[in-house]
């Protein structure tokens, strides 16, 4: 792998920048791999990278039906935080946040991780009680956080409407300073490049159409580029978890919903943090290009059409304008919908399945981006050892039988 550094930049500048090589090889599928990862999003690529790096398993293929960075990795609002309520979730997302903090150095790719802090607003007394409880729980779990009052929010975001007579007044917020945003494409490209350099085959335009089993054991996957055998298969998809589960002959407690977001025209720097509101479903941050990145809750109905419903957009834009009257004349540039797989308890499923050798890492709902490194880390462990890592043990498929759900509707921050 050619190292990205100031010296290499200077060296290639001499050659007019004609000497750069593609960041990863265009691999053709072999007939057999030790591990196949279905889904070349951030999570799948991170899984492949940690499999090769931490567990020394390099005979790995990542199958992507489209192209790297073309799915939900490129369709989210890039918020990274770990202020979840329950111990199980705090451990998972905090592991992820810790990996984020060293990620650019680790994979030699600038993912532009910017720890600019996240505010989660409270609009009534119960919101504030919940925020206090969650921040206390966070602090006990070693996750940074504090409770701010209205003045504290105003200090961080001077133009937010803190008038007491708006429909949902801002009474305060939880504040996690180590949270932030990252460049989503760079995360996919960086992990792809790093995994490729360790020998992982990244195979684009390769859609999985079937999962072959024998005696309850996974044998191979059927793809649009032929049948590929494998000892173990890890499914790391979003938006199509149910479709893949059906191929393997079982059902998942998952429903797929469109989640939409939009981006405004670029502005001068105005917002140097991330502000989310649970109750009125709008969250906003400003990208390095100056665009406001705005997101909201999921559409209520199941859907695979990658677009959002009109009244959901109207709802979160009216919330945006009430909280930030200064944005009322802002024009929007782009709008898109991604498909998120939501589980009944708003927590992911990182688990073995009824099929031996087949593992699923799905159901991240609206909050998968932040978990990309941590998800890959624990799923690599699961694929390498056949057993869950202690961090993902609570996120098994089994929990829907035992009733030990990890209810994170409160901290998921987006209506599921």
């Amino acid at each position: 792998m050619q190292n990205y550094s100031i010296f290499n930049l200077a060296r290639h500048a001499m050659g007019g920048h004609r000497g750069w090589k593609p960041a990863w090889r265009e691999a053709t599928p072999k007939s057999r791999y030790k591990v196949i990862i279905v889904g070349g999003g951030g999570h799948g690529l991170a899984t492949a990278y940690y499999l090769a790096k931490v567990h020394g398993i390099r005979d790995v293929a990542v199958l992507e039906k489209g192209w790297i960075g073309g799915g939900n990795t490129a369709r989210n609002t890039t918020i990274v935080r770990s202020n979840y309520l329950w111990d199980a979730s705090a451990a998972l997302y905090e592991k992820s946040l810790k990996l984020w903090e060293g990620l650019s150095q680790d994979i030699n790719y600038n993912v532009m991780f910017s720890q600019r802090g996240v505010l989660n607003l409270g609009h009534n007394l119960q919101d504030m009680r919940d925020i206090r409880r969650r921040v206390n729980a966070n602090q006990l779990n070693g996750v940074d956080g504090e409770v701010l009052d209205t003045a504290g929010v105003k200090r961080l975001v001077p133009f937010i409407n803190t008038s007491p007579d708006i429909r949902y007044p801002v009474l305060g917020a939880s504040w996690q300073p180590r949270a932030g945003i990252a460049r989503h494409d760079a995360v996919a490209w960086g992990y792809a490049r790093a995994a490729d350099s360790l020998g992982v085959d990244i195979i684009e335009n390769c859609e999985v159409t079937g999962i072959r089993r024998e005696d309850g054991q996974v044998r191979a996957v059927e793809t649009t580029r032929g049948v590929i055998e494998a000892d173990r298969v890890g499914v790391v998809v979003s938006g199509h978890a149910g479709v893949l589960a059906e191929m393997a002959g079982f059902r998942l407690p998952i429903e797929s919903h469109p989640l939409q977001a939009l981006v405004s025209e670029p502005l001068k720097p105005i917002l140097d943090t991330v502000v989310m509101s649970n109750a009125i479903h709008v969250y906003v941050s400003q990208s390095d290009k100056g665009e406001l990145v705005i997101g909201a809750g999921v559409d209520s109905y199941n859907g695979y059409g990658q677009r959002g419903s009109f009244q959901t957009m109207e709802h979160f834009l009216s919330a945006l304008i009430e909280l930030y009257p200064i944005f009322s004349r802002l024009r929007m540039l782009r709008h898109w919908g991604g498909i998120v797989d939501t589980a009944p308890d708003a927590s992911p499923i990182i688990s073995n399945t009824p099929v031996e050798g087949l593992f699923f890492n799905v159901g991240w709902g609206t909050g998968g981006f932040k978990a990309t490194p941590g998800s890959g880390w624990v799923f690599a462990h699961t694929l390498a050892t056949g057993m869950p890592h202690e961090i993902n043990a609570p996120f098994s498929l089994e929990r829907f039988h035992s009733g030990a759900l990890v209810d994170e509707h409160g901290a998921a921050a987006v209506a599921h």
Partner: protein
Amino acid sequence: MNTAPLRWHIDMLMITCPWCGPRDESEFTYGGEANIERPADPEALDDAAWADYLFMRSNPKGWHQEQWNHAHGCRRWFKAERHTVSYEIRRTWPMDEESS
């Protein structure tokens, strides 16, 4: 699986309430997958069968039978068959009628 033609909506869905006729989507609330029957004798089920009833969903990419409530209209529940890619709704019918 994915047979219906793609039709791009730029506005909201138009849903035909069996009693009130075609109305905007914003008058309705969604009630999830249809035809999930509560087991007659829950005590007799094992945990897996109970979980199957409570949590497992078919979540198809294609035609989906689902429940809607005309919340800002007659407030009655009904069933609809909607395509989960094109969002086309091909029919709606009252809860107590057979689907075909």
